[in-house]
C-alpha cells in the first residue's frame, strides 16, 4: 500500500526517525574512536540535555532568547512586508532601495554588533536590532519579488469593481503575495535564530548564546554540546510553528 493514508503519515515520520538515529549513531561511533573530552558522544550529551532541562538556569536563558527572537521577528515581519511591498509595487522605491539592500545583504549582521553596541549599549536593543535586520532581509526580498509578479489582471479586476489603489494593495496584492511572504518568513526566522546566538555570545547579557559561552569559559564541554543540540530542536520547532499558519493562509496556492 504505497499510497494509503496511513503510510502517508508514517513514512515521513519513519524517515525522520531513521535520519536522526543514523546521525546519532555516527556521532557516537566517531566520539568512541576519538575518545577525547572535546567530543563527547550522544550517550553522554542526550542524558545531560535532559538533566539540564530540569534547571531553572536553562529555562531563564531559553525564555530570554525566545523573547528576544519573538520581538525581533515581529519587527522583521512588519517592516519586511511594508518595505517589500513598497519595493515590489513602486519603481521609484525599488530604484532607491534595491542597491542599498544588495549592499547590506552579504554583510554578516553579527559583525556590526560591536558598532551597534556603541550606539545602543550591550542590552536588548542592540541585539534585537541586529537580529531583526538579519531576519527582515529575506522577508523583504521575497515580498518584493512576489508582489511585483502579481497577475495585473487581478488588480485590474479589483479596480474595475471600484477598489482604490490603496484597497488593491491591501486586499489584492498583499494576499496574493502571502505564499512568498511565508517562504521569506521561514528563511528569516532561521537566519534570525543563528544571528541571535552569535549576538548573545558577543553581548554576554543573557540567553542561550550567553549561557553557551559561560559553559565554554568553565570548560563544561558536555553542557555546550547539550545546548547546541537544544538549539537544533528549537529551530526545528520554530519552523514547524511557522509552517502551520503559513499553510492555513496559503492553502489556496497549493491546491491549484
Amino acid at each position, binding site marked *: 500500500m504505497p499510497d494509503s493514508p496511513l503510510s502517508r503519515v508514517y513514512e515521513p515520520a519513519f524517515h525522520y526517525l531513521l535520519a536522526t538515529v543514523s546521525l546519532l549513531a555516527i556521532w557516537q561511533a566517531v566520539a568512541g574512536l576519538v575518545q577525547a573530552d572535546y567530543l563527547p558522544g550522544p550517550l553522554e550529551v542526550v542524558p545531560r540535555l535532559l538533566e539540564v532541562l530540569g534547571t531553572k538556569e536553562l529555562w531563564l536563558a531559553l525564555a530570554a532568547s525566545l523573547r528576544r527572537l519573538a520581538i525581533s521577528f515581529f519587527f522583521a515581519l512588519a517592516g519586511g512586508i511594508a518595505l517589500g511591498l513598497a519595493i515590489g509595487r513602486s519603481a521609484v522605491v525599488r530604484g532607491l532601495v534595491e542597491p542599498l539592500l544588495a549592499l547590506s545583504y552579504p554583510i554578516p549582521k553579527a559583525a556590526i554588533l560591536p558598532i551597534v553596541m556603541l550606539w545602543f549599549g550591550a542590552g536588548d536593543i542592540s541585539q534585537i536590532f541586529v537580529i531583526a535586520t538579519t531576519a527582515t532581509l529575506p522577508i523583504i526580498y521575497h515580498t518584493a519579488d512576489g508582489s511585483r509578479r502579481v*497577475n495585473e*489582471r*487581478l488588480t*485590474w*479586476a*479589483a*479596480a*474595475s*469593481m*471600484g*477598489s482604490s489603489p490603496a*484597497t488593491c494593495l491591501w486586499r*489584492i496584492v498583499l*494576499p*496574493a503575495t*502571502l505564499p512568498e511572504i511565508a517562504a521569506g518568513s521561514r528563511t528569516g526566522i532561521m537566519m534570525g535564530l543563528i544571528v541571535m546566538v552569535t549576538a548573545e555570545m558577543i553581548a554576554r547579557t543573557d540567553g542561550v548564546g550567553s549561557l553557551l559561552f559561560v559553559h565554554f569559559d568553565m570548560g563544561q564541554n558536555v553542557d555546550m554540546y547539550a545546548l547546541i543540540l537544544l538549539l537544533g530542536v528549537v529551530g526545528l520547532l520554530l519552523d514547524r510553528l511557522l509552517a502551520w499558519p503559513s499553510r492555513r493562509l*496559503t*492553502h*489556496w*496556492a497549493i*491546491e*491549484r
Partner: protein
Amino acid sequence: MNTLSTGNRLAPALSLAGVGKHFPGPANTFVALDDVSLDVAEGEFVSILGPSGCGKSTLLYMIGGFIPVTAGAILAGGAPVHGPGRDRGVVFQDAALFPWLTVRANIAYGLLEGGMSRKEAALAIDEMLSLVHLDGFADFYPGQLSGGMRQRVAIARTLAYDPSILLMDEPFGALDAYTRSVLQDELLRIHDCRRKTVIFVTHSVDEAVYLSDRVVVLDRSPGRVHSDVPIGLPRPRNRQDLLRDQTYQEHVIALGNTMMEMHANA
C-alpha cells in the same frame, strides 16, 4: 462629436473617436492601434474580431481604462474614460478570480465595494450562482474548479454588481470546444434577459457571428478597423437553427475569407 448630437437617436453607450495606441521606441514609434472610431448602442453585442497581434485586447484594456490611450478619446455613457470604473465590468481569458477567496467571496467583492450590506450581498450571490448554474459551489476555491466553472464565476462576479457595459477578453479562448459552446449559449441566454452592452474580443469567426449584433474586424500593423459588419440575425438564437441559417453561413464564410486574406498579407 457628431456622435453626441445625432438628433433623435439615443446617445451611444460607448463611443471611440480616433483612438490610437503608439509605443514610442528608440528608432521609430510602434503603432499598435491607429484611428479606431466606433459607436456602440446600448444593449448592443459587438465582437472585435481580428488576427493575433492586431491590438484587439489592447483596445479592450483601453476601454476598461487599464491602459491609457495615446490618441483620440473614449466616452462611456457620455463621460470620458480616465481609468477603470464600475460602469465597465471585465471578464478576462484567465478568469482572474482571487484564488485566496471562495467563489462566494469573489462574487461578493464587487457588491461590497459598491457599499451593499453583507445580507443583501448574500441574496444577490445566490441569485448569480443559479444564473450561471453553479449552485452548491459557493464555498469552493477557484483552484478547485475547472476552467469552464472558473469562467462562469468570473461572469457572475462581473454581472453581480450590474455594470452597464460588459468587456470580455477572449473569455472562452482557453476552454475546450464543448465547454466553449455551452458557455456561449449561456452568455446568449444571459444577454437576452439582461441586455447589457457587450464588447467581446475573439479570434473565432463562428463565435463572433453566433453571439453578436455586429462584428468589427481589426486589421494588424497597425491595428485599424478593417470592416464593420452588422449581423442582423434575430434573437433569441438557437445554435441548431442558426447553423442551418443562410445569413449565418454567409457571414461565417465572408468573415472567414477576410481573416484568411489578413493572414496571407501578414
